[in-house]
């Protein structure tokens, strides 16, 4: 309680025993508001209609929503339903940064569009999905001080910054350069900087999307503590797991109407299993019940074999002496914390990074990156597929390749968007296109980096089905993933990358590993 009260900055300083966190004080010179009464919503919107451009079909229209002080609201919806857009509108970033907005957003009873960034950030701040791209200073301490400077925070800035870092358990990192931190630590730092502005309401846009399970658990714990201290949280996510234990209400994002009327309590979630399924949303890991590892012939030859693989960062070995074999027609999962080197290993196996040791493969090795946008080279979706086809079948004229490309796009459900730019696609579609752009080359081995990252259930299933069909035909797949339950369900073997070395986990070890990391259960 004490720290939140002190977070609400202002020249009229609130004492250490301020009664509640919604107590408000802003620099006297700017406004006379001294206190937000309890019955005024922390954040609300009325008649909200958003278009990315004038004349376009709206992303959503006539949306109303109100969030009470101290509440934790979970807004759920499939990829591309406009929930992130709503988050940006509620945080006051849209329409300044994109689009056309009708209707009103109010923070503690005041219209958000009449507040400048400084005033606004003292009331509401946002945590982004991508832990990178949200810091502008070099070290952890400087970043927190930057936020404190911005809001013209009174008192000893250094002491305040250290106090905030200590609250999140980051005081040990004060002097660390931000780019050396893991994704989880970065999200914690983003949380600290958001609180440093004195914000009493936080909007969170899929904050767990890039994190490993243990980091998710720690961050969820941190957020739960904030909730208990009275901070209002508005969470946008398509996975309810980490939020169910402490959220107050769940709302399904709709394109129109009063969202409050559709709200239900987390205890009701299991009873609404069908509503979740109809929207293609995850609810627990039950959907994995029908998923099994591919049947593997005992004498399957290795499609890829690596021996004594060593990868260096500069001069120091980062991964050393790794050996692995991927049998034909099998799925192997690669698990490990953020920063353990999973992506580095995949890149080396695909022959796109320097390494010592030997990697032998029976044919082409494909690699799909965690961020599919790194892989797009063409201006249209169909060209994207043609780029790979041309490279893998040199000398074949385009007239013969075009029907092949079209057939593949149809299979992947992308034929309707063939002439669109890859960057215009939804996240799920981009992921499928990246996969297709690799598979078009007739790979024998496919390496996938977090293929289900930020995907809703429907999209995850679609990708899995496409993949498994090819595994049956003999494709060897290696999946690096944080989704430990998925890894257990689909894999013939699970490899753990830890401290620069690799080992295969026994079924018992896999079970233990999953138990330690899986999301809280979502009820029967």
């Amino acid at each position, binding site marked *: 309680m004490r720290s939140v009260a002190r977070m609400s900055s202002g020249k009229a300083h609130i004492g250490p025993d301020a009664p509640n966190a919604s107590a408000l004080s802003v620099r006297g010179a700017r406004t006379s508001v001294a206190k937000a009464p309890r019955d005024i919503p922390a954040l609300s919107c009325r008649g909200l209609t958003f278009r990315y451009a004038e004349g376009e079909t709206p992303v959503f229209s006539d949306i109303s929503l109100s969030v009470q002080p101290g509440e934790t609201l979970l807004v759920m919806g499939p990829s591309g339903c406009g929930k992130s857009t709503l988050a940006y509108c509620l945080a006051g970033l849209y329409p300044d940064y994109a689009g056309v907005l009708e209707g009103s957003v109010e923070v503690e009873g005041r219209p958000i569009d009449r507040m400048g960034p400084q005033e606004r950030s003292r009331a509401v701040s946002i945590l982004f999905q991508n832990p990178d791209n949200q810091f502008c200073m070099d070290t952890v301490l*400087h970043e927190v*001080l930057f936020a404190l400077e911005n809001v013209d925070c009174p008192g000893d800035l250094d002491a305040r910054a250290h106090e905030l870092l200590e609250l999140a358990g980051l005081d040990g990192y004060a002097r660390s350069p931000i780019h050396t931190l893991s994704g989880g630590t970065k999200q914690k730092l983003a949380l600290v900087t958001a609180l440093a502005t004195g914000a009493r309401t936080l909007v969170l846009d899929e904050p767990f999307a890039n994190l490993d399970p243990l980091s998710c658990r720690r961050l969820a714990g941190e957020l739960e503590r904030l909730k208990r201290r009275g901070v209002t949280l508005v969470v946008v996510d398509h996975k309810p797991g980490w939020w169910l234990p402490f959220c107050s209400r769940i709302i399904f994002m709709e394109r129109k109407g009063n969202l409050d009327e559709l709200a239900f309590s987390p205890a009701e979630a299991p009873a609404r299993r069908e509503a979740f399924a109809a929207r293609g949303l995850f609810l627990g890991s039950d959907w994995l019940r029908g998923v099994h590892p591919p049947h593997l012939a005992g004498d399957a030859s290795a499609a890829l074999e690596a021996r004594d693989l060593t990868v260096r960062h500069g001069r120091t070995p980062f991964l050393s002496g790794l050996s692995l074999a991927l049998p034909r027609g099998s799925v192997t999962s690669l698990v490990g914390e953020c920063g353990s080197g999973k992506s580095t290993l995949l890149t080396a196996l695909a022959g796109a990074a320097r390494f010592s040791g030997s990697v032998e493969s029976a044919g082409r090795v494909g690699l799909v990156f965690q961020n599919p946008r790194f892989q797009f080279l063409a*201006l249209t979706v169909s060209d994207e597929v043609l780029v790979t086809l041309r490279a893998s079948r040199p000398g074949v004229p385009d007239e013969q390749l075009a029907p092949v490309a079209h057939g593949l796009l149809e299979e992947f459900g992308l034929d309707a968007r063939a002439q669109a730019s890859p960057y215009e696609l939804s996240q799920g579609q981009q992921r499928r296109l990246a996969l297709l752009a690799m598979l078009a080359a007739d790979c024998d081995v496919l390496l996938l980096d977090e293929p289900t990252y930020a995907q809703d259930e429907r999209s995850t299933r679609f990708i899995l089905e496409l993949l498994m069909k090819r595994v049956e035909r003999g494709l060897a797949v290696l999946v690096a993933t944080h989704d430990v339950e998925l890894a257990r369900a689909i894999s013939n073997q699970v490899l753990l990358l830890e401290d620069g070395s690799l080992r295969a986990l026994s079924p018992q070890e896999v079970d233990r590993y999953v138990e330690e990391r899986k999301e809280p259960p979502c009820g029967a």
Partner: protein
Amino acid sequence: MRSINPGVKLATLIVASLMLSLTYNVAVNVAVCLACLVATVATSGVNRRRLALALLPFFLTALAFFTTGLFFGAGGAGNAEAVGVSTSVFGQRTLLATDWTTAMQLASRVLAYGGLGMLFAFTSNAFELVMSLMQQFRLPPKFAYGILAAYHFFPVVREEFGTVGAALKVRGVKAGPFSTRRLLPMLAHALERSESLAMAMESRGFENDAPRRVAFRVPLRARDVAFALGVLAAIAAGLMLVR
């Protein structure tokens, strides 16, 4: 050297190089270069190997100028003497005299610039420089923090460059380090990043014209003024006294 206000240091060294650019005094050029290098090396924490490496291009350029001046300066020098246009700055004749002096003048000037540049680059901190430009030279915070953000993204961009290269390689597309193939994804990312960074800064309360506290004061002290005046006076004196 590190304790000198970086903004003042930068301004001083720019004025110094402008003074040198108007004149052709070999002795002063060499003296400036040596003085700068001695000052740089004497500063604690300077990596001497990197300093030597950074100086290499300057030495090569100086050498190139020297040989060019030595072998091809004849016509120009003779004509200049014959035409007899003579200007002077700080009492220095700015005309080319003989081949040997032409060579030395050009080469030593490059070295002097190199020395001044190294003195700044190796003894200054980018963060302090930007803070000082904001506090003493009225650089708007919008630009100051923008520059810092861009600067801090260098390691990320380098990493991204590698990732895009790897992505091209696995796709079977050949692309050299400067290929336009790399451009599209890198550009798309740069745009995305700049936007999300701007949004992040704003949601952390950053507002260009709003009153803000300052957590890092880069002081402007008497010794900074003394440094500026001292360096410039020494060069001016050198130019006037050494013929």
